[in-house]
C-alpha cells in the first residue's frame, strides 16, 4: 500500500513525460544542486518580471522522484506572482518534512500532493526536495527576497 503511495501514477507520468524541461533564456538566476549520496543533479533557472515569475526552466538527471518533482515545480511556479510562488514552495517543503503527518493543500500544491507519500520515506525526501532547494537558490540569485533558510 505504502509503495503505491510513493510511486503515484502522477509522479510516474511527470517522470516519463516531464513538463517544461530544458534550460531557457533569459533568466535572472541559476542554481545547480547535487544529492551527494546518489548523484542526482538538477539545474534550475528563474526569470523574474517585476513581481512575478516569467519562467522556471530546468535540466537534470536522477531518480523518478527528483525529476518528477522538477516537472511539477515547473507546472506550479513558472508564471506565478513571486509571493505566491514562495508560498507554494514553503507548503511543498512543509509537506515533505512532515513525515506523512501533514495534510496537503490541494488547491495550493496541485500535482504536488502526489508527493505526500514520499514524506513517509525519509531516504527519498531529499530527492523530492532537490529541485525545490535549487529553485530557492536560483530565485535568490534572480533578486527575489526569501525567508529564512530551510534545510533539506
Amino acid at each position, binding site marked *: 500500500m505504502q509503495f503505491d503511495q510513493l*510511486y503515484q501514477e502522477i509522479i510516474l507520468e511527470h517522470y516519463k513525460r516531464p513538463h517544461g524541461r530544458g534550460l531557457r533564456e533569459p533568466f535572472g538566476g541559476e542554481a545547480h544542486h547535487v544529492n551527494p549520496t*546518489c*548523484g542526482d543533479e538538477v539545474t534550475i533557472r528563474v526569470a523574474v518580471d517585476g513581481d512575478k515569475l516569467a519562467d522556471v526552466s530546468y535540466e537534470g538527471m*536522477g531518480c523518478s*522522484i527528483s525529476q518528477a518533482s522538477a516537472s511539477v515545480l515547473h507546472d506550479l511556479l513558472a508564471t506565478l506572482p513571486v509571493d505566491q510562488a514562495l508560498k507554494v514552495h514553503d507548503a511543498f517543503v512543509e509537506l515533505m518534512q512532515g513525515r506523512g503527518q501533514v495534510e496537503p493543500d490541494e488547491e495550493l500544491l496541485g500535482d504536488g500532493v502526489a508527493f505526500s507519500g514520499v514524506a513517509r520515506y525519509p531516504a527519498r525526501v531529499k530527492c523530492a526536495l532537490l529541485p525545490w532547494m535549487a529553485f530557492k537558490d536560483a530565485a535568490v540569485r534572480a533578486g527575489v527576497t526569501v525567508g529564512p533558510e530551510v534545510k533539506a
Partner: protein
Amino acid sequence: MTSLAIPSTFDVAALRADFPILGREVNGHPLVYLDSANTSQKPRQVLDVMRAHHERHNGNVSRSVHTLGTEATLAYEGAREKVAAFINAPAASEVVFGKNSTEAINLLAYAFSNASVTPGSDPRFRLGPGDEVVISEMEHHSNIVPWQLLCERTGATLRWFPVTDEGRLDESALDDLVNERTKLVSIVHMSNILGTINDPARIVARAHQVGALVMLDCSQSVPHLPVDVQALGADFIAFTGHKMLGPTGVGVLWGRAELLEAMPPVFGGGSMIETVTMEKSTFAPAPARFEAGTPPIVEAIGLGAAIDYLTDIGMAAVQAHEQEITAYALEVLSSVPTLRIFGPTTPEGRGGTISFALEGIHPHDVGQVLDDEGVEVRVGHHCARPVCVRYGVPATTRASFYVYTTTEEVDALVRGLERVRKVFG
C-alpha cells in the same frame, strides 16, 4: 526461469539458522539481504560472545590488576592473535585495532604526515614536493581522500592507475606510474563496486624495486577469500570487522613489524606512551603506540568470534560458495533485458559484488521497488564516484553476496528487477 541449485561444500540452510536477522520479513516478504559488501549480518555466535563479555568479563584493558581487567585484556589480546593468524601475520603485534578501514588508512596517512614534519624521522615515511603517491581509479573514497589530503599537506603529487572497460586495473603504464619518486602505492585488493579482485604481485614488486611502500585496502577481500599478508607481499593492509560477520566499530591496520616500529604516533593519549613528563613523552612499541585511549574492546572480541566462525567454515569454502553464487548471478542477470553489468562479467578474478544498471531507470527507483519485495541492495555511487564517472553513470545498483546467500535469493532479485521494469518501463 529455471533455478539451478548448486551444491555447496557446506550446508547453507543450516548456516543461515545462525543468523537471526535472516528470519525476518521486510514489507511482507522474507528478507533477501544482498548488501553484505556494505555491512554483513552477524551470527548468533558473535552476538553471544559480545553479550557474555559485557555480562561477565567487562573491565578496561591493559591497565588493571584486577580479575575483570585481566580477563578483558586476555580476551582483547586473544582477538588480536586470532586476527594475526587469520591473515597469516608473522606476529600479533603487527595488528593495530582501530575503528574501521577508513581510520586505518587515515592512520597511515597521518603517520606519513607527521614524519614529513619531524626532523630525523624515517625517510620512508617522509613526503614533500616531488614525491608521489599512487592509487587507482577503482578505489573507495576512503582510499582516495586521505591521500589527496596528505598530498595537499606535504606538496607531494597524487597519481593513479586507470581502469579498463572490462573493470580491470590497467597496469600498462606501471613502470611510469611507479617510479623512483614514488613513496607509497595504495590500491584496493577487491573493488567494492566492480567486484574485481586485483592481483597486486606486479605492483608490489615494482614498488619495492623503487623503494616505495605498499598499502592494500582489503576491506572487501579479507571477509570473502583467504588473505595471506606474507604471500601478498604488501607492507600494510586495512580491513574492517563489520563486513566479516563482526560488529561495527572495529577495524584493523596490519603493518610489517619493522615499519610499525619506524612509524611515528598519530593519536596521543593513554596506553600509547612509555613515559610522560610535563615537557615530553616517549612512546610504547607497536601496536600500543597506535591505540591511544580505551580501544573498541568488545568489538575486537566480537571480531575474534567472527574469525572463529569463518575459520570453522574455512575461507576457501567461503570463497568457493561465493564463486558459485556469483557465477549463477552473472548468468541469470545477463538474461534480464537492458541490464548492463559494470565490472568483470565472468566469475574469474572477481568476487560476489555485482554492480549493474537497467537502461533508463535510476538506481534509486530500482532499489525502492526491490525493497518493496524485501530485497535489500545498495544504490548510489558506493563511495567510489570516480568509477561511476569512468563508466558514464551517476550511480549503480549493487547486489553483494556472502556465505549465507542462496541462489533462491538471486532469483528473488531477478523477479524484483522484472517488476522494476514493469513499473518504470
